[in-house]
């Protein structure tokens, strides 16, 4: 399916980005070009090929179930744009 301005707006919303009209038209142009290049992959028959998500074939990497003292909360909150009472603070969440 062709990429349209709607597509850009939809994925921008999914990725929580606000784009200006100018950005939208620029990114639409770029995306069309880039996706057209990606379509090169369609030349390849991969019907019997397993996908590789991890390039090194190791399995079962675990840690033991041991609890250790947590972090000083001041350090966790030190980078927060806004905090209160030891919590991160955001505008009211409507559920």
């Amino acid at each position, binding site marked *: 399916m062709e990429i349209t301005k709607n597509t850009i707006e939809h994925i921008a919303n999914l990725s929580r980005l606000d784009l200006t009209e100018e950005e939208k038209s620029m990114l639409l142009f770029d995306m069309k070009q880039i996706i057209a290049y990606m379509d090169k992959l369609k030349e390849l028959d991969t019907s019997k090929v397993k996908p590789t998500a991890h*390039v090194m074939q190791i399995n079962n990497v675990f840690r033991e179930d041991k609890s250790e003292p947590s972090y000083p909360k001041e350090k966790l909150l030190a980078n927060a*744009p806004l905090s209160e009472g030891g919590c*991160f603070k955001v505008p009211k969440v409507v559920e």
Partner: protein
Amino acid sequence: MELCELTIHEMNEFIKHKKVSAVEITKSFLRRIEKIDFTIGSYLSVLGEDAVKRAVEVQKRIDKGEVNSYLSGIPVAIKDNICTEGIKTTCASKMLQNFVPPYNATVIKKLLEEDAVIIGKLNMDEFAMGSSTENSYFKLTKNPWDIDRVPGGSSGGAAAAVAANLTAFAIGSDTGGSIRQPASFCGVVGMKPTYGVVSRFGLIAFASSLDQIGPLTKDVTDCAIVLNSITGYDPMDSTSLNFKYPDYTKALVNDVKGLKVGIPKEYMGNGLDSEVKTAVLEAVKVLKQLGAQCEEFSFSLTEHAIAAYYIISSAEGSSNLARYDGVKYGYRAEKFSDLLDLYKKSRSEGFGTEAKRRILLGTYVLSSGYYDEYYKKALQVRTLIKNEFDEAFEKYDVVLGPAAPTTAYKFGENADNPLGMYLGDIYTVSANLAGLPGLVVPCGFDSKGLPIGLQLVSKPFGESTLLKVGFSFEQNTDHNKKARIRGELEYGI
């Protein structure tokens, strides 16, 4: 000759024999940074007094004979996407402009354990997304060989700093060529190790399945020395490989007799700058003369690798960059109407254009209806690429080629053409997709006097092979010597 022009192993000799102190070395770099980084722009932050303090401590230990590491007292600069406790780590993004990690990356811990002295954090493309360091929110980094040109990227600050003697060595990261291409552009040695050999804990993720930390150094010996320090199993990183790591300096042997070298003909064809091609073919000639067997073969998936790479890296990147939402850390927009608006404004104002482009691309290829067509397909092509490499390494010890199609280009030359910029990664991305180690060493200059890099790729854990070939090449040519900028070069100031 000034101290800052020396390699790690040369400085180590001086330190060991008490000819200079760690403090003098650190100060020498700090002086040089003060003098010329104004022009080069490789650093985002410089640890002046803290670095000196640290050097004093290290020197005390050296005096007591407590230290016995190659890196004791050696200054190092770190790409700004690697977390340093108490030191701003920005990813060259407005988003993380004020982010101070409360923890060290595992590589940083390792470097500190070996008594290296961190002198600053280096510029890069925002979130490592780019190939020219033009995507930094903060500044441009200039190529020390021609300040009208880019240093490459995304580890552009790292390559420029090493090239301009602004640090003894640098630690960068390579997701699709981000160590190797700038190393090529700046005439330094750069290695992307096997995926899983250097812990990624504390490396701010771009594309988790492709990212790998590696060194940028002045020569191959230094590369081996740094690898010894930064590699190793880390239980904090599930993708870290647990095996017996070799002493990489043992690989520094001047001998390539019988070495089998494969040259993908797709790497030497259309799109490759003729001067780069000539330099690479010259390098092949040298290796042949030294007794290596070199032949062309077909790496048929070269172009597909670029497509697969940009799909996978953008998909992972879009997810990795989703956490920057103005809530826990990082930039928060000043004005917003509600939570959704806070998210959108903070992200739109905090990210630069290239980051947004990749986020959109990654979101698109993962979104419902497109997953199979693009993302899954790319993972399947990744399998094919891995298989093609497996086949190649049945025949060859190393795969040789250029690191980039051209030498360093001028600022702005590719800025309006993202696809064109992406295609510049054509020779480097396959190694990331297949998790393979790649080494870039200087192999000459073009007619403009810009350095050219030679790329060597080996099978997993083939670092020692790469170091051996790189070392032999370095010993039998004068490219490395020529690529070492003399300290008196002051960029016309």
